[in-house]
């Protein structure tokens, strides 16, 4: 493999792995705030205690994922320089800005308040402890925002100018932060993170209910998970996914054509539900289509013409067309499944029978890996659709990598990360599994003397 391909795989692998953690922590942070809020507002002593224990349990799981997010995030920050040096040199003045802001504004905040959330429960008042949870939530969501601003600029560059030495600079700071692409992407992405959080919480609850232990917490988790799940699954498709698609059709029509597998422009374009793109012959094998739906979804009328790949020069086509097509279809297909499952669960909850309906608890428990897949597939769609551009319309991916870092060196470190992350995965699974097995009542060790309170998972 050539150096460019290896650098791409290097980045793709490490970022995909990194994002396994933040998607849960960002979603979970919100749900922890919800549980802490219920605990804070209720006057019922027993309920308050129960919700506090429920939240403390997720704070422990949050902590494990947070540490993994931190240690896998640091390599991301360095990789722009190590593997994508020419990209960094030319666009650092623009994208370096939100990246540095992420560090300065959110990472400090998160690490400080997480310490308080985990170790401070006995040292600070209840409202202050709620506040710590809230700030952890704010920190992780700010962090997500800045990183999305960075990515959005690569997808849809705004507010920049080219300096004589070939370097880009920001012309308007607010223009950069207010990039419409960033806000649409942010809404869709954060909703996706809440889906992951909701499914994980609901799955744990369902597990407890099915096993008939910790049932009082099982109910809380299923309830919180399903309510958050049904809301976020709907917002994921409408309005956020819908807006994202329409905005893309305007600004990256070629990526949409690739996602949909539309080789030829068509008025009243059909939507392909399933099929296998054959790039050589420019057709879809075994297609399962719904007529005119694509035109309708993008333009609101069944007659509109949708641009196909044939409208664009071949060297502007996204390189990995089939993968792009599948990623998009996996994301959208799973999205449909999520809404259906959560809607059924919410309906039964409203009827008051959910906690004993095993045929719904089972899929709730088993589905928790799927949002991870959907989120990853979504990002693959975004990033593969952007190809062959690194910064859309400005800088090709083939111009951006570190020319002085050879293919062998890149392969060496890629293998190193593969090995390292395999070990991390095992530890992660063991730690989270043990915490869930021990249940919400895991012992709270009190160090005594000066009130240092430490919980052990």
């Amino acid at each position: 493999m050539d150096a460019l391909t290896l650098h791409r795989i290097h980045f793709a692998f490490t970022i995909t792995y990194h994002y396994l953690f933040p998607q849960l922590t960002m979603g979970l942070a919100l749900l922890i705030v919800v549980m802490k809020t219920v605990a804070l507002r209720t006057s019922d002593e027993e309920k308050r205690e129960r919700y506090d224990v429920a939240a403390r349990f997720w704070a422990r799981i949050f902590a494990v994922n947070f540490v993994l997010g931190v240690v896998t995030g640091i390599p991301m920050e360095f990789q722009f320089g190590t593997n994508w040096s020419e990209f960094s040199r030319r666009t650092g003045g623009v994208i370096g800005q939100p990246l540095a802001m992420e560090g300065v504004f959110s990472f400090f905040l998160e690490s400080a308040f997480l310490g308080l959330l985990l170790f401070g429960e006995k040292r600070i008042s209840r409202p202050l402890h709620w506040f710590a949870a809230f700030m952890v939530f704010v920190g992780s969501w700010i962090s997500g925002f800045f990183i999305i601003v960075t990515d959005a600029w690569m997808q849809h560059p705004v507010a920049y100018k080219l300096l004589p030495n070939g370097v880009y600079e920001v012309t308007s700071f607010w223009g950069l932060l207010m990039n419409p692409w960033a806000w649409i992407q942010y809404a869709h992405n954060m909703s996706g993170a809440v889906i992951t959080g909701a499914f994980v919480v609901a799955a744990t609850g369902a597990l407890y209910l099915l096993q008939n232990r910790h049932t009082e917490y099982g109910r809380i988790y299923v309830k919180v998970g399903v309510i958050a799940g049904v809301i976020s699954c709907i917002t994921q498709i409408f309005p956020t996914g819908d807006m994202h698609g329409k905005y893309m059709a305007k600004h990256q029509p070629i990526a949409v054509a690739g996602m949909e597998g539309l080789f030829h422009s068509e008025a009243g374009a059909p939507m392909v539900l399933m099929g296998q793109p054959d790039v050589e012959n420019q057709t879809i094998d075994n297609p399962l289509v719904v007529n005119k739906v694509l035109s309708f979804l993008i333009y609101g009328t069944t007659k509109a013409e949708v641009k196909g790949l044939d409208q664009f020069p071949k060297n502007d086509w996204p390189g990995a067309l089939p993968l792009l097509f599948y990623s998009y279809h996996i994301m959208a297909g799973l999205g449909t499944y999520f809404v259906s499952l959560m809607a059924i669960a919410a309906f039964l909850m409203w009827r008051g029978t959910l906690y004993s309906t095993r045929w719904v608890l089972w899929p709730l428990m088993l589905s928790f890996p799927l949002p991870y897949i959907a989120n990853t597939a979504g990002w693959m769609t975004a990033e593969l659709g952007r190809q062959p551009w690194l910064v859309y319309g400005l800088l090709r991916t083939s111009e951006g990598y570190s020319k002085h870092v050879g293919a062998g060196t890149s392969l060496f470190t890629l293998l190193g990360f593969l090995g390292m992350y395999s070990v991390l995965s095992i530890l992660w699974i063991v730690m989270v599994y043990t915490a869930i097995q021990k249940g919400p009542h895991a012992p709270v060790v009190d160090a005594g003397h000066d009130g240092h309170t430490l919980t052990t998972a």
Partner: protein
Amino acid sequence: MGTLWFWIVAFMLTVYTVLDGFDLGVGIVYLLVARTEQDRRKAMHAIGPVWDGNEVWLIAGGGTLFFAFPLLYASSFSGFYLPLTIVLWLLILRGLSIELRAHTHDKVFASLFDTSFALSSAILAIFFGAALANVVRGVPIGADDYFFLPLWTNWRTGPNPGILDWYTVIGGILALLALAQHGLLYLSLKTSGDLNARTTAWAKKLWPIVLAVTLASVPATIIARPESLAHYRQHGVAWLAPAAVITGIAIIAVSLARGWEWRAFLGSCLYLAAMLVGAAAGLYPVVLPSVGTAGHDITIDRALSGPHTLHVGLVWWSFGITLAIIYTITVYWLFRGKVPEHAAGYGH
């Protein structure tokens, strides 16, 4: 503007060294001074709530370097590709060791994580020292402003150096010793009983060695990079840095003799900060010196971002860093005082 950002980045990296320096230092001396399970838990407890926040200074400093000096970031990070990647692996290993140590109740695994924590901390210190020495010595920058350094060549400085040569190895050893001392002084400040006695005793043995290697590094630097002396001659105020280095060591020595734990630790902070500021002053206005003939030094002016970027950057940076300093102080204040004698494990 360029000078201001040069010192802003230097400031962030200095704070990183002083703060993360002590938890790295605790790692370096961990197996040496923390002998019993109780001691080890106390040592972990002393850094538990703060090490992650300390590391953020590195991330934020790196980000600031990225947007203020994109050329420097691009050239140095790709040029130091292999050592940086190894640093990343060590950071991962170290973070995990601390976390997992807190979670395990099994003796065998606890000693495994103890060892990996100590080893990764020590090697990191050596790498950081060697990295700084590489920057001071200069790298073979090419006509396109890029370079790629092999890990080692013939161990000599000169036009084709490697990451490791006699000079950068001295840098690595000095960093190892200096951070070990920093860690010892921090531990003695945060603990009582046996652990406190042992750390203090080691610190007393260590400071003369740190002094000796520090002094030895001066002629070494002048041999490896003669220009640094000229930089010092040009900017008279720069001499304050070496003066502060010596003052720092003197404070450590006197405070150790008198049993002043706080002052000894602050002396060590002063020493580390002055060492870094001294190195920065020796470089200024170059940010990455070139050796060999192909390329030019990367200077502040050449590496600097556009004016608008830097202007708005200054506004949000001042605001953000003020908040960050407030958080940092608050956390240290909340977890102030000595670790309780019967500390349970640090963990979540």
